């Protein structure tokens, strides 16, 4: 038997009704991401990136189409089933409001295991290890408000990976970081996704961040219009595209 790709979408459509008519925020998107693959989702503002990410995250139901996670369609699940799916199979980093403000860095990471009812000694050790790996060994007891933007983003990365999810989603992880920090954060993120064999998708408007991904998916008006894979194609795309 062939193992199914970690993530696969089939003709996913999301339409919104607005005063000016119907908008196809996501229009017949077919994509596949394999375990151990890190993909960037790029496109101009309003092209449907966040909507697409929300659908992949099981936060938003598509109007039609299938979203297969480890071969199982999640598009038709009930809300409680989606909640369960999110905490078991998906890891998140968000643009803002990333961390739970009243939990320390370490507690934020461990929360993901607590949610799944499996925070044990081994899990605690792994949390410490992962945070140390992300350069936060001496920041574990700090609250988010005591951490810089880059440090918060790295805690969120640890939280997104700690429970061994199949799919890791990052929405503009570098939005609030300076260039140097942004490169560091994305590079570490890419390394961890490759090592741990997760399927990773990062939405970004900063094309320089595509340096660390295996594949770039370009969206416009809700459609997937181009795909670039391999170092050559990607650096070409980065050199020739302006958003």
């Amino acid at each position: 038997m062939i193992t199914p790709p970690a993530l696969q979408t089939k003709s996913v459509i999301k339409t919104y009704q607005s005063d000016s008519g119907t908008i196809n925020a996501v229009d017949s998107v077919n994509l596949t991401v394999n375990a151990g693959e890190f993909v960037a989702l790029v496109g101009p503002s309003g092209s449907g990136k966040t909507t697409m990410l929300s659908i992949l995250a099981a936060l938003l139901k598509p109007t039609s189409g299938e979203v297969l996670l480890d071969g199982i369609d999640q598009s038709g699940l009930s809300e409680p089933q989606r909640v369960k799916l999110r905490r078991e199979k998906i890891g998140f980093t968000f643009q803002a409001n990333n961390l739970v403000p009243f939990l320390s860095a370490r507690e934020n990471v461990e929360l993901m295991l607590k949610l799944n009812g499996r925070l044990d000694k081994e899990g605690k050790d792994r949390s410490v290890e992962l945070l140390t790996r992300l350069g936060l060994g001496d920041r574990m007891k700090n609250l988010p408000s005591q951490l810089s933007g880059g440090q918060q983003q790295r805690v969120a990365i640890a939280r997104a990976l700690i429970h061994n999810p199949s799919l890791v989603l990052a929405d503009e992880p570098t939005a609030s970081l300076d260039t140097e920090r942004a490169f560091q954060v994305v590079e570490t993120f890419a390394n961890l996704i490759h090592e741990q064999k997760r399927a990773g998708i990062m939405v970004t408007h900063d094309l320089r961040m595509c340096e660390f991904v295996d594949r770039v998916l370009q969206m416009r008006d809700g459609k997937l219009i181009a795909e670039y894979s391999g170092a050559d194609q990607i650096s070409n795309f980065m050199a020739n595209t302006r958003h």
Partner: protein
Amino acid sequence: MTNEFQLAGYLAWKEIWRNKGRFFLVSLVIALITLLVLFIAALGEGLGNGNREYLSKLDSELIVFQENADFVIQSSRLSPSKVNAIRRVDGVAQAGSFAYASAAIVVTGEAEPVKIALIGLEANEPGTPTAVGGRPFRRNLADEVIIDSNTAYRSKLNVGDTLVLRTSQAEKEKTYDLTVVGIAEGQQLGLQPTIFVPIQTWEEVRPKSSAEIGNNSPTPNVAIIKIMDGFTAEQVRANLLAEIEKIEAGTLQEVIEALPGYTAQQSTLNTQGAFTLIIGILVIGGFFQIQVLQKVGQIGVLKAIGTTTPTVAIASIIQIVVITTIGVFIGALLTFLLSLGFPPSIPIVFNGFTSLIAIIALMAIGPLGGLVSIQYAIRIEPLKALGLSS
């Protein structure tokens, strides 16, 4: 479900702990509301008690009034012969005359005489107050007085001391020296400092017009009845009404409720208490609502990463209950400490039952006030975490 409760408890507690100052402030607001509500309840209890305490402590079941007195002691007059007739009615074990007048006592150190209720009672009949210090009356004519504890407090008189009573006799002020033989615990009539004298002495010392002077038989206002074993108050009342003309008889409860102003006073204070509770609900509700509005992003993230809605709701409820409990506890403690410093002349009485009802009502203000905010938290979309609204 167990995991949900554990998780909710964990989140609720961590949030409180890491925002101690803010949550403590809310607890303090609840504590102040508690203080207010408990004091209003205690004042209501104290006033009500002050009004009814003589009556409610009587070892008696029925009080006989003149017809049409509507159970108001001051509007009733019974002739002594009627009291004797009452004693012969079937089912009446004992009947004591009760006579009321207003007077004043001279207190050393105070410029103005203290106005008091002067009550005349028959020795060895129902109505005599239970003296906690000293002894009851032995005869119906004796220069003796039993004073209520509040009078004792105001006048600083003790058993064995001499009380100076001042009344007007045929338009002339006259003073009488009476020996304090007993002190009664909390048996005022109508919130006035009260003194009790034997009935014949009462007739001698009470304020009189010139026409009344020389009349030696006192006219009681009412008769206080103790019924025989084996009879009910209703039976004895029926017997009394059948055998004696122009009287009415009321149970203690009926007479208490007919006390002038009693019902109005109690309902005024109950309304005040209820309004304080409602204001409490609104204040607490407002606070939790503002808090949940500030937490939209945080709750969105929690839901997005897989926290169930029940967990979020339970965490909010736990927080509200903990904050309310701490507040009510602090408030009750403050009330207790403050009440220790209150002089006995202020009628404040902490009744266990009334306080319990108030505390239960106070414990409800947090959850009731927080209802809207919990509802709101339940409806927050996890998409908010992505900065999207659906």
